[in-house]
């Protein structure tokens, strides 16, 4: 019995909790991609850099706050810096939209043109970010490191395995729940949210109903910038902030959006967790779990790891390819919000 409990705790500690927190970050990122796809109808490759940009502004604000001694201990100071990050990112995103995307929108450019333009935006933003904050690692986490320490858990339960919950993981999961609930409430219960869904569903009919496309586009970018800043900051808090990482994050984020059904917000969330857990399940070393569950005296030579952690990114790529071959529309049929 104790062995079983130990095995469960072990899995929770190294697989379930990290999976939930990484999945939440991917889900928030994928929601941004899905909103752009659903309303503006293109795959926004600049989204990773938007996340990075939002996180950067939040970090700069956090440093400012720290230097004047503001603190919300035990919570990380970054949480009160996020609103500033969001506002600056919204303005920056709208500036890009007005100067870059608007031109192609009025000419009704096809989605591939948009996609390539967004790659240009991605490189531009990436360069700008590295110019401002530098390419190196930035650690901006402060506050209490753990909500629950492994040692405390061991003492509390008397088990051999410890369960720890990092502050960043707790903050990530709770923030993601609040943001997702807020977004769905907005999309399903407000006039503006419904008009976004209507526009995404049938652009012509939305115009015939007197829905203003400019306003829909504006609100979409505001939501996208907000989601991106939050996702980027949470990821940076949990791991660390490094500009290049956000470019690599683009693959699992697109995989999440596509697996769930691009354009579908529920799909983006489910896709986020599917990708996060697949990556972890495939690269987790099961040796200790097997030892707990196997009859006593069993010896295991290998780590029982399906793939090295270096192949993490390959997992999302493989899932992406499989989904595109077998069910290109994703788990939930995508296209509309």
């Amino acid at each position, binding site marked *: 019995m104790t062995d079983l409990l130990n095995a469960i705790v072990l899995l929770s500690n190294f697989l379930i909790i990290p999976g939930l927190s990484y999945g939440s970050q991917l889900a928030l990122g994928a929601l941004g991609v899905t909103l752009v796809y659903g309303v503006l109808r293109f795959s926004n490759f600049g989204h990773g850099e938007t996340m990075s940009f939002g996180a950067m502004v939040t970090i700069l604000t956090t440093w400012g706050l720290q230097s004047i001694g503001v603190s919300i201990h035990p919570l990380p100071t970054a949480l009160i810096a996020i609103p500033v990050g969001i506002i600056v990112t919204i303005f920056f995103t709208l500036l890009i939209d007005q100067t870059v995307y608007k031109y192609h929108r009025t000419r009704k450019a096809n989605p591939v043109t948009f996609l390539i333009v967004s790659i240009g935006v991605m490189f531009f933003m990436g360069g700008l970010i590295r110019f401002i904050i530098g390419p190196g690692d930035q650690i901006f986490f402060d506050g209490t490191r753990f909500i629950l320490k492994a040692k405390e858990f061991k003492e509390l339960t008397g088990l051999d395995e410890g369960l720890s919950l990092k502050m960043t993981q707790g903050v990530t999961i709770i923030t993601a729940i609040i943001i997702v609930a807020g977004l769905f409430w907005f999309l399903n219960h407000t*006039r503006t949210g*419904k*008009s976004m*869904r*209507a526009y995404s*569903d*049938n652009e*012509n*009919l*939305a*115009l*015939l*109903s*007197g*829905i*203003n496309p400019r306003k829909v586009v504006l609100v979409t970018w505001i939501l996208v910038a907000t989601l991106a800043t939050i996702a980027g900051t949470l990821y940076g808090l949990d791991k660390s902030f490094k500009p290049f990482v956000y470019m690599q994050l683009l693959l699992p984020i697109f995989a999440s959006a596509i697996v769930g059904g691009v354009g579908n917000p529920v799909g983006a969330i489910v896709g986020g967790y599917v990708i996060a857990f697949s990556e972890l399940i495939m690269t987790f070393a099961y040796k200790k779990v097997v030892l707990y569950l196997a009859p006593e005296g069993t010896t295991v030579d290998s780590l029982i790891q399906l793939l090295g952690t270096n192949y993490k990114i390959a997992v999302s790529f493989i899932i992406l390819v499989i989904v595109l071959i077998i069910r290109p529309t994703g788990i939930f049929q995508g296209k*509309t*919000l």
Partner: protein
Amino acid sequence: MTGGYGAADILHDCTIGVEKGQIAVVVGPNGAGKSTAMKAVFGMLPLRSGQVIFNGEDVTQLKPEDRVLRGMSFVPQNQNVFTSMSVEENLEMGAFIRTDDITDSLNQVYDLFPVLKEKRKQPAGQLSGGQRQQVAVGRALMTQPKVLMLDEPTAGVSPIVMDELFDRIIEIARMGVAILMVEQNAKQALEIADKGFVLVQGHNKFTNSGKALLANQEVRRAFLGG
């Protein structure tokens, strides 16, 4: 009105119109420019010459969105509902331009199409063809239009549903809404029409009251199958 999509005109000096509380029907063979004429009236097609007069006002230069604000409402032939949204949300979106209370209009539409009230929480994409058309007409009515334009409202529905829809359309006209519609089922449509326009290759071939057109030998032979 004269105009078309590219270099070639589809409409040549074509005139259609309707008065308050009346039903006007545009009929004609395939490719006669019936749907194009509707789009031209609604401003979805640039006119080379001619004008669109609404309520004594020249609206030729207005965008479709602005015509909605003036009191024109259009039900396209295809993709005329928000498939992923519930029936009620479809109707709410119809009333998007209004800032006043829409409950009365909502109830009015539900009275007109009781089945929609039953299914108001269902996504419109899951409804049958006839019910979808009802949603589409209902959505267009939510703006409280002065003129309702229907592009083949009975396309792809069964004859029973078609009769039912025509009855509802008459009812809507009695409420004082002008109805301008394009119909494939020329005979039935002309029976309920106060005014009929027979279009051939973008020209007005015949224009008369619905009854007179039905009685016209030439129209019968050419377009109504004897």
